[in-house]
């Protein structure tokens, strides 16, 4: 297990190098000349050429990449031409809010989706099951950027129950409750699509596991209904669910994708002892 973990972490290095090359090339391919943007349209041709040379833009592409990587490894992501400030603090300053929002959305969609899916599988064709099927169809068809606006119009503008923007109230805010109120609408919007996917997947895998012989055996041995559903049903149904939650986490975060994949693989081994990593 430990060797597997070390191997996977080592494999991250070439993946990260590959990603850094892709990011560098995309930056390079994107339209617009940084020198022209910095100096404006009034700049002379000589000024532009001098600035390009100063910034190292006249060097061959691989040399530029090595320079760039060298700076990135020392934590220097360059300066924003737009805000005239170093980029790294700008990114880090927004990381906390990003992680808080995506983390909340992920917890909401996982807990809500699994609970809804287990209930749908326990009572198939019930009203709850049907409602969750309709919700899944709606969730898959609704653009999330539109759902956000709809929720904002209803709960912030019309009803006035929740704030429409910001992280804390400008006056007298700052407590955890204030934060939770500000988180509610964006986190719900982000979670809406994933919660329905996770619920439907949980339902179908749970229905499959609850039909297995060992579940009948557990019932025959007198295991209580809760133990049957949760211990024998849910734990065995969790593998595809963990996969999807991992994918959703990747979509929500965009960042740290490789690390999430690794975490998912390690969870597989915990869930199903037959899965071994050597």
């Amino acid at each position, binding site marked *: 297990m430990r060797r597997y973990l070390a191997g996977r972490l080592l494999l991250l290095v070439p993946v990260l190098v590959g990603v850094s090359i892709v990011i560098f090339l995309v930056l390079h391919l994107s339209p617009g000349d940084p020198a022209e943007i910095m100096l404006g349209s009034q700049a002379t041709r000589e000024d532009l050429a001098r600035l390009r040379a100063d910034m190292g833009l006249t060097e061959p592409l691989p040399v530029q990449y090595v320079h760039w990587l060298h700076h990135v490894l020392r934590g220097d992501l360059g300066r924003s031409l737009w805000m005239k400030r170093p980029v790294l603090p700008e990114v880090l300053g927004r990381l906390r809010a990003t992680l808080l929002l995506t983390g909340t959305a992920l917890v909401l969609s996982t807990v809500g989706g699994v609970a809804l899916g287990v209930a749908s599988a326990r009572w198939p064709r019930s009203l709850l099951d049907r409602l969750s099927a309709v919700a899944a169809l709606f969730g898959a068809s609704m653009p999330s950027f539109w759902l956000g*606006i709809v929720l904002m119009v209803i709960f912030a*503008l019309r009803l006035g129950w929740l704030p429409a923007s910001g992280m804390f109230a400008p006056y007298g805010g700052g407590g955890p409750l204030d934060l939770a109120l500000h988180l509610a609408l964006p986190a719900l919007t982000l979670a809406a699509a994933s919660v329905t996917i996770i619920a439907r997947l949980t339902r179908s895998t749970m229905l499959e596991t609850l039909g297995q012989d060992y579940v009948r055996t557990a019932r025959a041995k007198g295991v209580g209904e809760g133990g049957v559903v949760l211990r024998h049903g849910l734990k065995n149904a969790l593998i595809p669910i963990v996969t999807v939650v991992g994918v959703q986490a990747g979509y929500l975060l965009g960042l740290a994708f490789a690390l999430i994949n690794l975490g998912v693989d390690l969870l597989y081994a915990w869930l199903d002892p037959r899965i071994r990593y050597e």
Partner: protein
Amino acid sequence: MSDRRASATAPPAQAPRGRNVLAVAAAVALVAAVLVAALAPWLPLPDPDTVDTPNRLRPPLSPGHALGTDEFGRDLLARLVWGARVSLLAGVATAAAAMVVGVMLGVIGGFYTGWIETIVMRLTDILMAFPYILLAIAIVGGLGPGLRNAMIAIAIVGFPIYSRLVRGVVLSLREHEFVEAARALGAGDAIILGRHILPHLLSPVIVAFSLDVGVKILATAGLSFLGLGTQPPTADWGSMLATGRQFVVLSPHVALLPGLAIFVVVLALNLLGDAVRDFLDPRVG
């Protein structure tokens, strides 16, 4: 594969009646949307790009503007109808392009082993591992914003779904006796692929495609919403939604109507896709 044939022609296993009614309703709504979009130039609508600032942000049911006007006084109904042309065409075209590329790569990756398979499938894995919106933004960043480039980006991001699906089917088909029999009779790769493998791919690919068009419409609308797709003044549901967002406090209809249009069309496509799947592949429910 004979069992598959038999089950495909048998009536769909316990497909509830309500679902058929829904599927028919979805089909009617889609045909109506396609007809309206196709006939837009001949419909008695105001010009979608004519600016009329004194009449900006009129509410729905205003005289002369059934659905009201946007921030430049342009007729919202006309813009929705013309926007349908862009959104529907973009959805079908990107899904079709992703399908053609994905099926070709999937067949190659499944039929030929060795380095070809390795290259094709690793490429697929890399594309699938990247968060799709990030990749699409990167591609549009490289090519420049605009509807055509946004569509190219979405097609590139979308083909791995098809290549994964098709490769899985081809891998199992390759080992079947009828392929061995064809080979024993002296059939070459082209004949085996064209006559014995491709027909079996038809139903899973049709199912995937019918569910994919909606996803692609959402994706194009998303890129337009971010300003990377259709450029002004061309009407497109995603960009209409994006600009309408700024006026959501006073005139929510400007943002809500294009979103509603996307929602209804994608919902209809999903309902129809589910019905197609029930019909062609009754084992999955």
